[in-house]
């Protein structure tokens, strides 16, 4: 090396050292919301919202709230919460006008949706003397009265349904009572008579509770005692171990004490005040070990979680959200409690709600949070998620979900003697099939469509998911909680997995180089590098791989796509994997989008490296509930994601060598796939071992691989020129690193494609207004196109081409300002039809095309 070369290397090293050793950015939100929705858009106020998701159809949601001017605000969504429609033009049910919409309501709506499709709606009637339960068997379009409990002095009903039971618990004349019924199928004919009133012992003066049904059928209720006063109070739990059997609820158990009484004032809710607002949720993931769910059941199947509000002292406004759990249906509870909110302030968190994703055992908690309020008197909605792995749940960093900030003046602004219940007593949360859906009262008018502006609450919701994750270039990783680190191991690794069967694996191949551009700012390691060269995934019931030729002979024409080991050609209409899973092309040459049943999207962007005759891949994941793997959540107390058994890697070691051995031996080996767990396809005689190089990356250069000619680095100038279009700061730095280290400017191209896909990707859904229809009966199909969490509130523009049974149906229809397009027809022939919609962006738009999954529509012939 001559003087010029040394200088070149020195300057490059200095540039990169400066670039990468700058302090890292703060952690991004570990969960993120999409664009929030105003569900109600109604005059006057809606608050105390409940929300529920159909456990058998991830696109169907239903929400109910108090409505100040009569009835209950009611809305349903058939597209996963993107758009909301109403069972009645008044946007209400139980409004005292139409008997078919249920007896007139006072308030306190609560919801449950069982796996048979029964949607239960429970509320207090207008006389405040009966608990009404309605049943809807069509997802909230029509209603029938299922049960009326009363007359009596009643309050705070909660309905829950699971394990072949439906239960309603409420406060009656000061004590908690409950009634349950057996459920064997859809509709009233399959719902037995409600059993006798169960007086729950030890609950005199106890209220503001919740109820949950265990997977084994046991029923557990929680309430707060005393229900008056500012605190302290106790959360009382009673269990009915035999479910619908003849035995009564067992004696009360004190799950926890709390300093937040039933009427505790905080500045953010000074008039209505708050209670501890206890909530229950069971881990119901009992998946068998099978090809569809290789991890089997949740390690804590049957665990019962309790969320509540506590404070350091009675009267303190520093209220916090706490969780305890019980592994014996409420008989004993974990101690100490886990604090959910991660703020360092002494401000208020209140009105928590907990829900468990039955497919994975993940739990979500959402609440009102005043951490950003200097006066501690306004709130934003916050959420977090935890996995069931590990002895006790570790919550991800809290994420602000609401776009705006709401204050407590959104019911009736304080006028002497008028009702002014502020946010009310509770908020709503549904969590199923990957997405959590909180619902809350919001007077920020952040969506710009509240008819009362910022003076009254509307009912808001959002979709909460894991943050986007990336596994790009010389593997630069962005974990689902937004932490960046480099992972240069060689072999095949589990990068993401979840207990509902999702798994993504990547193959990383070592690269011989002569130059390392600098240390990873996350851990200070400057090792040799590797590249993603193949990806495999478990999608619903199918195994999908995208690999170079199994023969090992490089083929610059493309990678090979296999589903369940069978070679596939990906056409423009994609490959339907069932249950919402599918594979479609992206706008990048050879690019794939793999959609999972749980709403995760995996984007694979390949690039061909001619001088090395090698394919390399960028792997990006969005919208995922998966939290484990090398892209998994990094807990606050650790520097790397947890190991597969939930063990934490702990704090980062001080010595660089210890970091290296921790990362590339302990951590890498733990997440390597085995012959048993590998999802890849192999040439006969090869296996995951063939691709494993345990000693890679070498801790220090030279980065030599036997019989491989090292690549030569590129100059900084070449890299800057190639990477100029990459606008994201972190990705731009990764691009520079890769181009300099490998000398391959082609990396910039794959980064650019990934950037375009990431920032412009869309999802299209299609729904029908009725199904089935009869011959010549009109049906309207509505396509809705949405951007990603990156594009936020921007609505995609362009046209939609409807497709019926694979053929174009009419001309493309222009999207309206809501990103929707409608196609009405009465000419479908009798039989079953598959209807889809393909989004075509406007020329020059940053949005990418997308195609919906098929919507099945049946046309009945003349009977």
């Amino acid at each position, binding site marked *: 090396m001559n003087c010029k070369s040394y200088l070149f290397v020195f300057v490059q090293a200095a540039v990169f050292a400066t670039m990468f050793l700058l302090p890292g950015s703060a952690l991004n939100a570990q969960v993120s919301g999409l664009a929030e929705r105003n569900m109600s858009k109604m005059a006057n106020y809606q608050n105390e919202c409940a929300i529920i998701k159909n456990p058998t159809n991830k696109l169907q949601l239903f929400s109910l709230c108090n409505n100040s001017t009569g009835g209950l605000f009611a809305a349903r969504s058939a597209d996963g919460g993107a758009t909301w429609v109403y069972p009645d033009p008044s946007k209400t049910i139980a409004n005292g006008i139409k008997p078919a919409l249920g007896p007139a309501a006072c308030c306190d709506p609560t919801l449950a949706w069982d796996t048979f499709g029964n949607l239960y709606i429970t509320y207090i009637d207008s006389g405040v003397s009966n608990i009404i339960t309605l049943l809807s068997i069509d997802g909230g379009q029509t209603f029938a009265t299922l049960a009326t409990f009363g007359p009596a002095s009643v309050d705070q009903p909660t309905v829950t349904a699971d394990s072949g039971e439906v239960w309603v618990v409420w406060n009656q004349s000061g004590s908690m009572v409950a009634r349950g019924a057996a459920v064997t199928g859809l509709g009233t004919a399959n719902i037995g008579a409600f059993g006798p009133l169960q007086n729950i012992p030890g609950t005199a003066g106890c*209220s503001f509770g919740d109820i949950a049904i265990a997977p084994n059928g046991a029923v557990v209720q929680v309430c707060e005692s005393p229900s008056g006063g500012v605190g302290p109070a106790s959360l009382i739990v009673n269990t009915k171990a035999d479910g619908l059997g003849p035995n009564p609820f067992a004696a009360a158990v004190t799950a926890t004490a709390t300093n937040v009484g039933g009427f505790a004032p905080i500045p953010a809710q000074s008039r209505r005040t708050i209670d501890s607002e206890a909530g229950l949720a069971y881990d119901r993931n009992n998946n068998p070990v099978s090809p569809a769910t290789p991890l089997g059941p949740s390690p804590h199947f049957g665990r019962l979680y309790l969320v509540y509000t506590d404070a350091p002292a009675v009267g303190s406004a520093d209220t916090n959200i706490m969780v305890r759990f019980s592994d014996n249906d409420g008989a004993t509870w974990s101690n100490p409690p886990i604090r959910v909110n991660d703020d360092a302030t002494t401000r208020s968190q209140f009105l928590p709600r907990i829900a468990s994703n039955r497919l994975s055992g993940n739990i979500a908690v959402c609440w009102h949070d005043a951490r950003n309020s200097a006066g501690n008197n306004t709130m934003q909605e916050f959420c977090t998620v935890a996995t069931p792995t590990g002895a006790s749940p570790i919550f991800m960093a809290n994420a602000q979900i609401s776009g705006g900030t709401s204050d407590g003046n959104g019911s009736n602004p304080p006028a002497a003697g008028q*009702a002014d219940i502020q946010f009310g007593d509770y908020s709503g949360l549904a969590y199923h099939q990957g997405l959590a859906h909180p619902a809350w009262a919001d007077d920020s008018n952040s969506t710009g469509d509240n008819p009362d502006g910022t003076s009254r609450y509307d009912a808001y919701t959002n979709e909460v998911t894991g943050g986007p994750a990336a596994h790009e270039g010389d593997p630069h990783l962005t974990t689902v909680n937004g932490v960046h680190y480099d992972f240069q191991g060689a072999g095949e690794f589990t990068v993401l997995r979840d207990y509902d069967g999702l798994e993504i694996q990547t193959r990383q191949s070592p690269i011989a180089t002569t130059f390392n551009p600098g240390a990873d700012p996350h851990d200070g390691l400057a090792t040799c590098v590797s590249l993603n060269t193949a990806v495999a995934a478990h999608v619903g019931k199918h195994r999908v791989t995208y690999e170079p030729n199994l023969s090992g002979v490089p083929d610059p024409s493309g990678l090979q796509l296999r589903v369940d080991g069978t070679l596939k050609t990906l056409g423009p209409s994609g490959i339907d994997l069932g249950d919402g899973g599918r594979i479609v092309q992206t706008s990048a040459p050879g690019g794939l989008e793999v959609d999972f049943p749980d709403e995760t999207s995996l984007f694979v962007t390949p690039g061909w490296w001619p001088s090395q005759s090698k394919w390399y891949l960028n792997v990006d994941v969005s919208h995922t509930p998966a939290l484990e793997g090398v892209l998994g959540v990094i807990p606050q107390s650790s520097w790397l994601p947890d190991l597969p058994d939930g063990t934490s890697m702990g704090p980062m070691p001080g010595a660089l060598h210890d970091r290296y051995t921790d990362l590339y031996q302990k951590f890498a080996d733990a997440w390597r796939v085995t012959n048993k767990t590998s999802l890849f396809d192999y040439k006969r005689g090869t296996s995951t071992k063939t691709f494993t190089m345990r000693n890679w990356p070498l801790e220090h250069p030279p980065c030599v691989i036997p019989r491989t000619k090292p690549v030569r680095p590129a100059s900084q100038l070449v890299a800057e020129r190639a990477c100029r279009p990459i606008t994201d700061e972190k990705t731009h730095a990764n691009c520079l690193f890769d181009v300099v280290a490998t000398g391959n400017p082609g990396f910039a191209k794959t980064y650019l494609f990934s950037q375009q896909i990431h920032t412009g990707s869309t999802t299209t859904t299609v729904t029908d207004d009725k199904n089935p229809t009869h011959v010549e009966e009109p049906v309207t199909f509505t396509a809705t196109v949405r951007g990603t969490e990156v594009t936020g509130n921007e609505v995609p523009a362009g046209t939609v081409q409807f497709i019926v049974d694979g053929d174009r149906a009419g001309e493309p229809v222009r999207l309206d300002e809501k990103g929707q397009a409608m196609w009405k027809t009465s000419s479908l022939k009798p039989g079953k039809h598959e209807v889809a919609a393909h989004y075509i962006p406007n020329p020059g738009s940053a949005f990418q095309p997308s195609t919906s999954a098929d919507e099945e529509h049946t046309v009945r012939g003349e009977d």
Partner: protein
Amino acid sequence: MRNKRIMQCVVACLVMLTGLLPVFAGDSLYGKVTEVRSADVVVLDYGAGSYVIRVMGIVVPAEGPIANESKQFVSKLVQGKNARMRLGSRTENGEMVARLYTDDPVNGIKDVGLELVRSGLARRSQGEDYQFDYKYNELSTAEREARESKRGLWATAQPQ
């Protein structure tokens, strides 16, 4: 102009003071009525403490025969009996402004404020019914019924 500014300051101070007052509010509370102070103010004991409840949405005469009659009416309904209040708001002195319901084996579940208005022993407060948590015009309907039947306050052409 100066006066207007002073008034604004006073209002702001009052608003701040309001925020510092002790607050007692919540949702619904069940207990026993231990004292009827007037037709629209009672004390509810919930076992571990008590709250002063001001019945929401009604105006009762402060004195005179109707005042006495209305207090007796309420005493008969709730004095020493179980009752439930549903919170609407609170006053500056910490009273709960609420709808009050009987829970009586004989009388059943009755809305005390509504019964007062229906009997002509109280008028409805000014404003829309829903502003007092009556979503179905119950107060207006009850007052119309009392007026048409010339009960209590409405027995004479000029109500007391």
